[in-house]
């Protein structure tokens, strides 16, 4: 089943130099493991193709039911050097929430994950 992160998580992002961070927080405690399993570093790298120039690091915060992603090379140099509207990475949070993951039907149903149907 397709699941969109916007429907199972919330997020906030910020900057450190040319790196944007995205804190991805499960909307329900029982959904945290879904994030851990399916929103991997590799998945984030694929998702942000053409948006960031560097790699991705992921940290787990089970206590907050959150993952922290560091997206390197995200801010066109960062800080005052950047020419971007979002020079401080404030809305990488919502860019992350666009991600659609594939969860096996049985697991998705057991956790009552909302299904995502892409608008045509």
């Amino acid at each position, binding site marked *: 089943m397709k699941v969109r992160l916007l429907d199972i998580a919330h997020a906030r992002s910020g900057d450190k130099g040319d790196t944007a961070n995205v804190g991805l927080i499960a909307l329900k405690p029982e959904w945290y493991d879904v994030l851990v399993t399916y929103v991997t570093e590799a998945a984030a790298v694929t998702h942000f193709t053409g948006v960031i120039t560097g790699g991705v690091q992921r940290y787990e915060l089970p206590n*907050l039911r959150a993952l922290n992603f560091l997206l390197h090379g995200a801010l066109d140099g960062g800080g005052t*050097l950047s020419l971007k509207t979002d020079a401080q990475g404030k809305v990488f949070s919502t860019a992350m929430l666009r991600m659609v993951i594939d969860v096996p039907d049985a697991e998705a149903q057991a956790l009552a994950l909302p299904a995502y149907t892409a608008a045509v």
Partner: protein
Amino acid sequence: MSGKTVVRVAGGQGFWGDWLEAPRRQVEGGQVDYLMLDYLAEVTMSILQKQKERDPNMGYARDFVGAMESVLDAVVNKGVKVIANAGGVNPEACAAAVQAMAAKHGAAGKLKIGVITGDNLLPRIDELLANGHELRNMDTGEPLSLVRDRVIAANAYIGSEPIVEALNRGANVVIIGRSTDTALTMAPLRYEFGWAANDWDKLAAGIIAGHIIECGAQCSGGNCLHDWRNIPNLADIGYPIVECSPDGTFVVTKHDNTGGRVSVPTVTEQLVYEMGDPHSYITPDVVADFTSIQLADGGTDRVKVHGIKGSAATDKLKVSIAYRSGYKAVGSLVYSWPDALEKAQMADRILRERLDRLGLTFEQVLSEFVGASATHGPLAGVGAGKDAPEIQYRIGVRDADKAKVERFTREIVPLVLNGPPSVTGFAAGRPKTEEIVAYWPALVDKTVVTTHVEVLS
């Protein structure tokens, strides 16, 4: 040690430019012991340094004088103490301005202002480099010598020690320059509860309390994505308050009868803001572990925080260095329906061709189409902006050569008459060329930085 069982620290400013009403609302809305005001972002010190070069009496966050005026009654008559990193590169001038303001209200004798200096390393850079402190860029590894001649500010991030000392010496207002944001909250807790310099778990708790409230209302419902439509009454938002116990556990809350929300989701969003490696949040006082934080619902607009672990501080201080790094200019035009995005894209092709014909190349050129792809790029989808009522075309350049950037600023507005149709939004005319002041984070041995505390009365 004060013997208090609860100390209430209120966050009243999250950056220089934050809501002018907030400090007064924090001291009038209910009982608080401390008002914490954070004014500094990474490049603020360089702006202040430029101001000081023009006028030796400037170089601090001037909003602070107005903030002090708005809370003067609470400081003088209710015993509220104020801790602020408003001193910038000139804490002494900041203190003098506050004293002059207080004198105007007949309260000059009622303030004991603690002034903390020693964070400013600009006059000592060559000495430090000569003594083998390379001040390498923490991100790139490059030595500072590469940009030494362009450095305009250099400040070490100071921890809680000198703030605690100022409070011990009776200060009811503490003005510091480049302290860490979090020390402004942790220091009064450490002072009140007598936490030892190696009581790592409690110091870490104070730091995390500081992290939660250092961005003002960003933890009490402001800029909160979770359930954002239903967060009540943001027009009247309550700024955050930490109610801390001697054991380092605390509650995040806000005054009754204010808007906004304090909940596990609003606090969690702030906890992950600007986070790096959550296992080691490094400060001058302690290394805090964000994976140890436990949050629990403590009732309406109350979140309990406990379980926090810390470990020994490192022997380094972070140094925030600002240096001149060329010029930039960003301009924009707005194209309307029909085919707004196509018109904007054509304008971009034309402008770039004209820059080519002029032989102008830049270190960086960036085009954005606001309304289609400016913030999410290709993630917005292939058809994004296709039928938009309007699209803002935004183009910026960056280069070391100011003349080239200046020439670029002349090329945008002509498109209004000699480019694609249905264009507006050019009232501001040519964009301004700005000098870029870039940020160079470095580390320095703690032993080379000595802070000084003076208490004026």
